[in-house]
């Protein structure tokens, strides 16, 4: 039987009263106090997530950049040092191996970059095998840091104020999708203004020995501001409202980035695995498009439910739920392009009953003041 993996914070989560569930092969907290309260905490204060299940690979060597350019959809040649960028690993047919965040960091010597690639927990072994299988003649070193490094996310409008109490440097100077190093114990960690909630916030990478200490320190520093630990239930509802894709739902090995409205992450003017297929798809047009919809009839669309028009199946729901910030039953799903225009009505089949839904603007939620 497959044993579920646990992060170094497993006992901490249990002590905080978390309910643990399986997620991507890991035993992770789904909720502490309750999904709705945790969701609102991140939207209005700040919340701390254990994201250590995610995989972290380091790519170094003189061909690190050409190697990653060959594998990933984004153009990494334009990245500055300490920049973070969203990029997708594609199969040759343009469908998705995984989606990733790439961090360009100083290596040895400092002028030669090393790249940190953060991947989904459920895809870690597949991605590792995929990257190694495509090393070819590239002179690169691949290092799986996942077990040595811990990863936390601290997200919400008060995240910067709270973290500032723990860090000497000016966090307001750390721009969106930028990272910098910080001291932790005798070592160093990395703090980045990135996240998966639609809020301002940070992700922290650091040696695993400091996991419990830093987790406790952040919660303590944020206690007066209402900061709380947040489980995977709210992580899903937060990313859903912000229309951030989740592998296995909005993207997978049957879906291309263009279909999933992630064309912005694909630099079709450079060569990469899957590029030709995506270029062809871009010229010919996609057969399905990811849309956001609101339930008009009473009911909740769920992942896997069928989308129909006049009794004919036209698509499928990828994620659907009661969206806590909007107070509405919303969904994301794939439909043919002719049904993707704003205001288009179709039906979602909920327990055998066709319930009316309408295409609406996405993301469903954008944080106030975000330019």
């Amino acid at each position: 039987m497959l044993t579920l993996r646990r992060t170094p914070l497993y006992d901490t989560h249990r002590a905080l009263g978390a309910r643990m569930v399986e997620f991507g092969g890991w035993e992770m907290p789904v909720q502490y106090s309750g999904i709705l309260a945790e969701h609102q905490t991140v939207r209005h204060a700040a919340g701390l997530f254990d994201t250590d299940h995610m995989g972290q690979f380091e790519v170094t060597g003189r061909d690190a950049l050409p190697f990653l350019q060959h594998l990933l959809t984004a153009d990494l040649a334009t990245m500055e040092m300490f920049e973070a960028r969203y990029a997708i690993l594609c199969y040759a047919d343009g469908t998705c191996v995984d989606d990733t965040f790439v961090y360009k960091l100083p290596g040895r010597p400092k002028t030669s970059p090393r790249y940190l690639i953060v991947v989904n927990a459920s895809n870690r072994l597949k991605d590792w095998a995929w990257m190694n299988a495509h090393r070819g003649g590239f002179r690169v070193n691949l290092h799986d840091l996942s077990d040595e490094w811990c990863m936390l996310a601290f997200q919400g409008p008060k995240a910067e104020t709270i973290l500032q109490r723990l860090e000497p440097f000016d966090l307001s100077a750390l721009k969106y999708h930028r990272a910098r190093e910080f001291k932790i114990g005798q070592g160093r960690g990395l703090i980045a203004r990135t996240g998966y909630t639609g809020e301002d916030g940070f992700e922290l990478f650091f040696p695993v020995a400091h996991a419990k200490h830093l987790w406790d320190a952040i919660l303590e520093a944020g206690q007066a501001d209402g900061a709380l630990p947040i489980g995977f239930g709210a992580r899903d509802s937060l990313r859903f409202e912000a229309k951030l894709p989740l592998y296995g739902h909005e993207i997978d090995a049957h879906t291309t980035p263009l279909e999933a409205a992630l064309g912005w992450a694909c630099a079709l003017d450079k060569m990469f695995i899957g590029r030709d297929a995506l270029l062809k798809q871009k010229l010919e047009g996609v057969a399905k498009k990811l849309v956001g919809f609101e339930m008009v009839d009473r009911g909740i669309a769920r992942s896997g439910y069928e989308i129909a028009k006049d009794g004919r199946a036209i698509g499928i729901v990828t994620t659907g739920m009661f969206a806590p910030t909007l107070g509405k039953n919303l969904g994301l799903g794939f439909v043919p392009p002719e049904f993707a225009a704003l205001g288009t009505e179709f039906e979602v089949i909920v327990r055998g009953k066709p319930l009316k839904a309408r295409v609406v603007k996405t993301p469903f939620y954008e944080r106030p003041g975000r330019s």
Partner: protein
Amino acid sequence: MSDKPITYSPDCKYTETHEWARQEGDLIVVGISDYAQNQLGDIVFVEMPPIGDTVQAGKAFSVIESVKAASDIYAPVSGTVAATNADVVNDPALVNQDAFGAGWLVKIRPSQPGEMDKLLDATAYQQKVEAGELK
């Protein structure tokens, strides 16, 4: 929610699928147990059967949805639906807040006398829950 101890109302009978049933005059009031609401987490949607619908003991008659998932609710006894709780439709969180009171779901006019006697009493239900015998 989760920090409060689970309660087992002694004046109710229970199913192994976590519904409670309470005799009220000639009707049976039905809801889900405090344990069930705690397990489901925040409830955001309740689908009620139409008044007059026939329900059968052990068969699904309603659906409750939490943030994460949809769950079937099974009839503890057979009969017809005599009333549904409109307050819960408008504010599903009532089931979380007061599972045995304001969070009741339906009232059933029973058609099979004796079905209540087949249900678990509070002590037996609590024992099964705490022994981990029920899903």
